[in-house]
């Protein structure tokens, strides 16, 4: 596999798009919520968990996925869904709770479901892991060449569903790739306070599947490892696990005071901004100029602005629609 110019430029565009989307949502989220924080107020009600800082993981993995490859995600799902190729308008509208949104405004930012890209997520920590294994079982039973991917955090790797899922996936040799995004904290709990092993790649060994650790801030490293894992699953060689070490640039949720961080910790990690790392690599190769990087940024700003306009101008669902398309 050669790491070609166009491939890596697409990776860069995707990462810039995710960052631009997240930072703009972060701005809009605070509209009308302050000075006394009112979580229900403003155009984006409810909690907000943004993906800034971890973009290289979503982009590097999803670069190898087809629209029909199922992906399950977490309470921090925007990056995964954007990397999977969602319609940005429908996604932004859903975050705004609008009728034109992916779930007609009933899901919000943590419950984004998109049949077009075979994507689902939810706020239950680790909840998506067995879903991905179920999807992989269906793929195998149907003799298809699709691959399921589950993104989750290192905190989710301590719940029962992770262990049950990885075990069954290994026993049945299912086409699923587990991507542990180790951003060092489960909400505010550091990994060493909650986890008996230092690396979740070690847990792959415990279940007899290949597992690797990659630098989650380096998109090319993620891309390369993900290619091997996904190709392997597509060939019918079974599940594997990728542990990507990464970092949240905006804390667990919007409004997180981050009192649990060490001094200089965040500024040290910001030196490993995935946009800067990939940008520098591309410039080193002569594949990206400063002007081209600015043009990419401008394009992504325009795309996010268009999605914002669409979301703001879309209607809310009517109260009488509240029970439509629901099942329980």
């Amino acid at each position, binding site marked *: *596999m*050669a*790491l070609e110019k166009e491939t890596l430029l697409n990776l860069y565009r995707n990462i810039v798009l995710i960052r631009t989307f997240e930072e703009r949502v972060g701005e809009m989220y605070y509209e009308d919520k302050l000075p006394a924080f009112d979580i229900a107020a403003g155009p984006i009600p409810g909690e907000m968990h943004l993906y800034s800082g971890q973009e290289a993981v979503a982009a590097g993995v999803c670069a190898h996925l087809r629209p029909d490859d199922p992906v399950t995600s977490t309470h921090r799902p925007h990056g995964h869904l954007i990397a999977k190729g969602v319609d940005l308008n429908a996604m932004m509208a859903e975050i705004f709770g609008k009728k034109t949104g992916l779930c007609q405004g009933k899901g919000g930012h943590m419950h984004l479901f998109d049949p077009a890209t075979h994507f689902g997520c939810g706020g239950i920590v680790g909840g998506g892991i067995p879903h991905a294994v179920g999807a992989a079982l269906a793929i195998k039973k149907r003799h298809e060449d699709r691959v399921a991917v589950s993104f989750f955090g290192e905190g989710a790797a301590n719940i029962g569903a992770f262990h049950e899922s990885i075990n069954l996936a290994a026993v049945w040799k299912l086409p699923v790739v587990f991507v542990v995004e180790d951003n060092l904290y489960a909400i505010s709990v550091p990994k*060493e306070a909650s986890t*008996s*092993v*230092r*690396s979740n*790649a*070690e847990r*792959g*060994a415990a279940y007899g599947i*290949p*597992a*690797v*650790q*990659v630098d989650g801030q*380096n998109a*090319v*490293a993620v*891309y*390369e*490892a993900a290619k*091997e*894992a996904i190709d*392997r699953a597509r060939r019918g060689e079974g599940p*594997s696990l990728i*542990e990507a070490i990464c970092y949240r640039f905006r804390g667990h949720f919007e409004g997180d005071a981050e009192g649990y961080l060490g001094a200089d910790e965040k500024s040290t990690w910001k030196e490993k901004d995935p946009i800067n790392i990939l940008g520098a*690599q591309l410039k*080193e*190769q002569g594949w990206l100029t400063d002007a081209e990087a600015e043009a990419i940024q401008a394009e992504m700003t325009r795309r996010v602005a268009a999605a914002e306009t669409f979301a703001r101008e879309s209607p809310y669902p009517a109260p009488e629609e509240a029970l439509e398309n629901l099942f329980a």
Partner: protein
Amino acid sequence: MSRSVGIIANPASGKDIRRLVAHGSVFDNNEKINIIRRVLLGLDALGIEQVLAMPDISGLARQAAEKANVSFPVALLDMPLKNSAVDSTWAAAMMAEAGVGCIVTLGGDGTNRAVAKGCGYVPLVPISTGTNNAFPVMVEGTLAGLAAAVVAQRIPGVREAGIRLARRLDVYRNGELIDFALVDVVAYAERFVASGAIWDPHKIRTVVLAHPRPGTIGASAIGGYLPQAAVNGKAGMWLELGDGGKRVLAPIAPGLITELSVKSYRTLKVGEQGVITIAPSVLALDGEREIPIKPDQRIEVRLSQNGPHVVDVTAALQAAGQKGVFIRANHI
């Protein structure tokens, strides 16, 4: 004589992409803690009075010390952590400065390369914590601890019998020494460091070996399996790979035994050098992609005798045994 020993354990080793692209094993950190514990017990049995250890994000040395119940203090170096190879280099330099008599390393080729940049003349006991390594050896931690103790204490005859001076492959860019490898330098036809490892035989172009080694995994095996290879240990090798050459079967990664086409090869004596002409490519040092090279750069590799001092565990223990180190007085 020193009654102090250093321990440098790399928490990141044993998890790279070779678990996906080949059949490497994951080497878990709990086992590294167990190994350090056995090293500490080995050191304790022979009267070492202090251990300096590199701190790390996983707390390997700290946890090992808590479990080992040894009679000496295990002092973690007071150093800032970058969570990269720089930590190992820095720790080695601090240990050398502090006057340790030996440094025990846990990691792979990359870990030892980082340590070699800082350890100066302090001998190393390199314990392999992975399946991909050519420089460190698979050795029981207890034995490594005992050997480190007899080396550190300069038991007469032990250093003469149990320490060898390793070679280095010095890498020069436009005439300036920029880095070195302990085992091999490979020009890999890729532009990015990415996930680090090398495994695609079609991208392996130039291979420079400090030692051709039929007994190891990786690029050094390629040279080791060639007829008339300089296996007598006196020279390194320079190989150019490409279509139409001599086809050689070699284990380039765990479980990955593949044919490579070697167009030409020659011995490389200490002091000799050659020029890498494959550009753009990435130089892999000891199996890890490290340095992207461009067509306008002149890259030379020279075999030197400036590597670290390395302890042969068996030879050191044998020499110590001859000196009666392990004989204890009878109880009355």
